[in-house]
């Protein structure tokens, strides 16, 4: 663990500074600052309603009003449309999973277009998630919660995007499935994917993350590396109220 954290970090891929965002009239983000370097798994921790999901959605360009600066690979994407952001190589796996009921599993899997070469092939995806192969012709929403989560992750691995944003991928899942998702994230990291994770479950996060940011009331209030986790445990309990 300590070794992994000491590894020299790659170039900054995503840098967010003074990000503010609104849902209609309500001001949700009040100045979010963080960055993600190539090959890292970075986790946003925080209580319900702290603004973690809104941060991901703002990066993805699906929050109507946003100010500040979001740069991806040096490019300013603060005002870009979400389809353009996706084509730059950011892939998003939403909290509610977003499996389409009117599409079967195969169609769900093939829905996100390839944005660049180097994505996983269908065979590689079935190797990661053997369940999906057997359920290809089922209606997307007929899958179990765990299978739906796997499908939601699998379909963005095909696209060639190397920067993944996963919003609470373990929420409401059985321990054995959580473990499988943990293995998948570790495997993706070892293959060079960069991952921005939102989690409430920091025990799970601690098995995969390199660094953490704490989000509270729409602001990043703290951040530390995984190697400093045990030193920060008391603070963390206070922040998360667990």
């Amino acid at each position, binding site marked *: 663990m300590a070794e992994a954290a000491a590894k020299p970090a790659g170039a900054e891929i995503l840098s967010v500074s003074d990000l503010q965002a609104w849902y209609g009239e309500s001001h949700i983000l009040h100045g979010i600052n963080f960055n993600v370097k190539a090959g890292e798994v970075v986790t946003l921790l925080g209580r319900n309603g702290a603004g973690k999901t809104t941060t991901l959605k703002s990066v*993805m360009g699906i929050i109507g009003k946003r100010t500040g600066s979001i740069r991806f690979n040096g490019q300013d994407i603060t005002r870009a449309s979400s*389809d353009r952001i996706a*084509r730059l190589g950011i892939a998003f796996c939403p909290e509610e999973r977003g499996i389409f009921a*009117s*599409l079967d599993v195969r*169609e769900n899997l093939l829905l996100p277009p390839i944005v660049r070469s180097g994505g996983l092939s269908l065979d590689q995806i079935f190797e990661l998630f053997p369940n999906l192969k057997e359920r290809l012709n089922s209606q997307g929403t007929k899958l179990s919660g765990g299978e739906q989560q796997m499908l939601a992750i699998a379909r963005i691995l095909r696209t060639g995007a190397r920067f993944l944003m996963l919003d609470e991928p373990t929420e409401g899942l059985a321990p054995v499935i959580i473990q499988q998702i943990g293995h998948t994230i570790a495997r993706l990291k070892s293959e060079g994917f960069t991952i921005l994770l939102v989690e409430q479950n920091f025990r799970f996060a601690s098995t995969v993350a390199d660094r953490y940011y704490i989000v509270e009331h729409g602001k990043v209030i703290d951040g530390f590396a995984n190697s400093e986790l045990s030193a920060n445990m008391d603070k963390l309990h206070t922040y998360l109220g667990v």
Partner: protein
Amino acid sequence: MQALYAQLLVGLINGSFYALLSLGLAVIFGMLNIINFAHGALYMMGAFCAYFLLHLTGIGYWWALIIAPIVVGIFGMILERTMLQWLAGLDHLYGLLLTFGIALIVQGVFQNYFGSSGLPYAIPDYPEVGGFRGLQGGMNLGFMFLPIYRGWVVVFSLVVCLATWFLIEKTRLGANLRAATENPTLVRAFGINVPRMITLTYGLGVGLAALAGVLSAPINQVRPLMGADLIIVVFAVVVIGGMGSIMGSIITGFALGVIEGLTKYFYPEASNTVVFVLMVLVLLVKPTGLTGRAA
């Protein structure tokens, strides 16, 4: 018996138009969340487009079947880009009022120049195959006399409806469309240009209406109010079938045409109201329509 078959055929013809129009309405409603009251006016524009092509440029029926849906479809896409897109996310009422207004304006303009009487549009008399001159004439099926053009309308409409169903339910493009109907925000976040897809979908729905207009021209003549009369029944068909389903609107369209035809034979007095009576019954029992998903 002859009269029964004849009414059945009329029913199938009307059913073809109902199916083509309600199919377009269902596709547009799914994607744009707009109840497209301009549909009847666009159907009329399809017929007029064929009429202009023939009388101004000499381009005949077969090319009109292709050109008119494209021309009217482009007109529809301009409407969507300039006006309808701004209504996204608003209450249905706004879309309904805007498209109703568009329908009144379009029909008013055509009435201003062409009055209310019908302009004739001949059944095509080419190509000559065997003893047949194009789609003119008819054939004796033994139990009834079938005008070729009417048989053609039914078969061709059915083929177009099924092709549209196949496009939407069985292809990659259709999967994008179905997904965007469910959750446009997420589909866009995957890198698909959803606004462009919405424009093309409106164009497709409008194109189907224009195609129905061309098909109808030789049967019902070309009149500025031809769509206004038809669209009321088509909306009843849509309510009965439910907005959610592609196959549902096709089947309901043909079925109600046939039911109307049968009513004309068995109880002619009710033939103009039977669709509306059915609509009331369906609304009482199943408010989302026969095949509709809950909104």
